[in-house]
């Protein structure tokens, strides 16, 4: 178990070094990614210039939501962005190489790209989250920080699993462009705001189907003390991570079988 992980990180390091070879591109990508995140923040700050609460949440409390989602996705970008290359690899035969090496194909695919501007996104996310926490009058207990850390890590697993899963469409429709995985990935923006404001339909989607809400809204309500929040909500990130990882593993197996022509 340790060896594959060590190799995984070495592969990531290689990608990082490759990316830094192209210095201008690296910085432009980093700046571009951060600007995209900033749009949401600019909106929030402007919005709260005219409104004092959104669905019972203050600006600072919502910043915690934003920070959690941004950090989770930023870390994913650092370590598991290679899944966005799956379609190209399947189409040009590079995926064969993955099957001919004695380590997990999934790990190899994760490491196929290192979008190192993920560091920018996750750093910004942390800053935003910490700022939000500092101004929200949080009652700090022994479980506050562990739950936060757990939420962020599970958030990474969730976003990674979902993007992995959606990119596997390449096994069944090799010619499909990456529009569908991109669309699903962007749905995480719903979870940057309190789910109270949405209609029932969206709330269900973001809680059960694409459970981004489980790694932002529910644990945040617990930590920030917004409304009555049952204690078990501290485990919602685990549920989201476990469920999505299981789904991704299942479909990955089937995708591999399809690629290898099992059952023909």
């Amino acid at each position, binding site marked *: 178990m340790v060896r594959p992980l060590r190799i995984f990180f070495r592969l990531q390091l290689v990608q990082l070094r490759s990316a830094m070879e*192209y210095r*201008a*591109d*690296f*910085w*432009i*990508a*980093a*700046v*571009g*990614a951060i*600007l*995209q995140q*900033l*749009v949401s923040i*600019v*909106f929030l*700050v*402007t*919005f709260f*210039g*005219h*409104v004092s609460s*959104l*669905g019972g949440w203050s600006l600072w409390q919502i910043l915690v939501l934003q920070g959690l989602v941004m950090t989770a996705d930023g870390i994913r970008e650092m370590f598991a962005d290679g899944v966005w290359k799956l379609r190209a690899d399947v189409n040009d035969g590079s995926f064969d190489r993955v099957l001919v090496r004695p380590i997990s194909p999934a790990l190899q695919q994760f490491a196929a790209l290192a979008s190192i501007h993920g560091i920018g996104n996750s750093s910004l996310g942390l800053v935003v989250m910490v700022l939000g926490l500092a101004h929200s009058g949080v009652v700090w207990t022994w479980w506050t920080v562990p739950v936060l850390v757990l939420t962020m890590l599970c958030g990474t697993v969730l976003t990674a699993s979902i993007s992995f899963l959606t990119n596997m469409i390449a096994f069944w429709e090799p010619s499909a*462009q990456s*529009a*569908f995985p*991109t*669309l699903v990935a*962007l*749905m995480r*923006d*719903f979870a940057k*705001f309190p789910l*109270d*404001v*949405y*209609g029932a339909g*969206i709330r269900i989607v973001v809680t059960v189907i694409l459970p981004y809400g489980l790694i932002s809204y529910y644990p945040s309500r617990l930590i920030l003390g917004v409304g009555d929040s049952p204690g078990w909500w501290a485990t919602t990130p685990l549920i989201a991570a476990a469920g999505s990882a299981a789904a991704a593993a299942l479909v990955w197996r089937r995708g591999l079988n399809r690629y290898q022509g099992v059952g023909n």
Partner: protein
Amino acid sequence: MTSLDTEAALRGRTSPGSKYVSLARTTLQQAIAYRITTFFNVGLTFIWVIILYYLWRAAYAGRASIAGLSWDQMRTYVVIAYGINALVGWRTGTAMMATIRTGDVVFGMVRPLNYCTTQLARALGFTVVEGGISMVFTLVIGLLFLHIQAPASVGSALLFVLALIIGFLTKMLVVFLVSLLTFWTLNGMGLMWSQQAIMQILSGTIVPLALMPGWLQVVAKVLPLRGIVSTPLEFYLGTASGWAGLGLLGLQAAWLVALWLISNLAWKRAFRIVEIQGG
């Protein structure tokens, strides 16, 4: 679009005008082939329409107006703002950038022609499809689901259309200017992200200019980006009339001319620099 397609498109044409038309037609065919991708690409920008709808709905619970806009007006603003912004979308931008990598032949053939106009003509093919799909989304979501308002008056509607056209051309030129930067960096994605983000803020897409904090409002009002979304919407909603309206229109038009001049200066400069460097 390969340089060979471009050659074929340009060969045997007489006037520059018809050359531009045939360039546009070639990319239009390509764009139609990619309509499903475009559908998704435009669709995903409308995710934020849904988010903003709910957020503003919560904000307007218990109040009739924010910064002079009613709930009806705000709702209308959000839908149409995104619709306008999506008229010139992702593909248009990347198409302009792609030619710089592959279009050496085009350079050679196009020198008697205007590179800026050529890029606009090529991008037009994608813009037609992106714009068309965007309009469909706007109308379906706006009219069927979110019940947006009609323009404030006939006069408003006409001014809206006029401002829309000027704004549309403005955006094309801004995207063109950004695309010139691909001479110096391979990472078109980073440029597109930056351009999209800044555009969303300063054009008034994410939030009407009137709501912005003072200093940001000043910056936004001075720049040409407001002419893309904010100005047309002010006419649509009827919030700018009389002399104020005329002033807006004038500013928009002045910026368009300025951008046209800057663009032409910029690309000629860029070509010369690249030639010297042997890029």
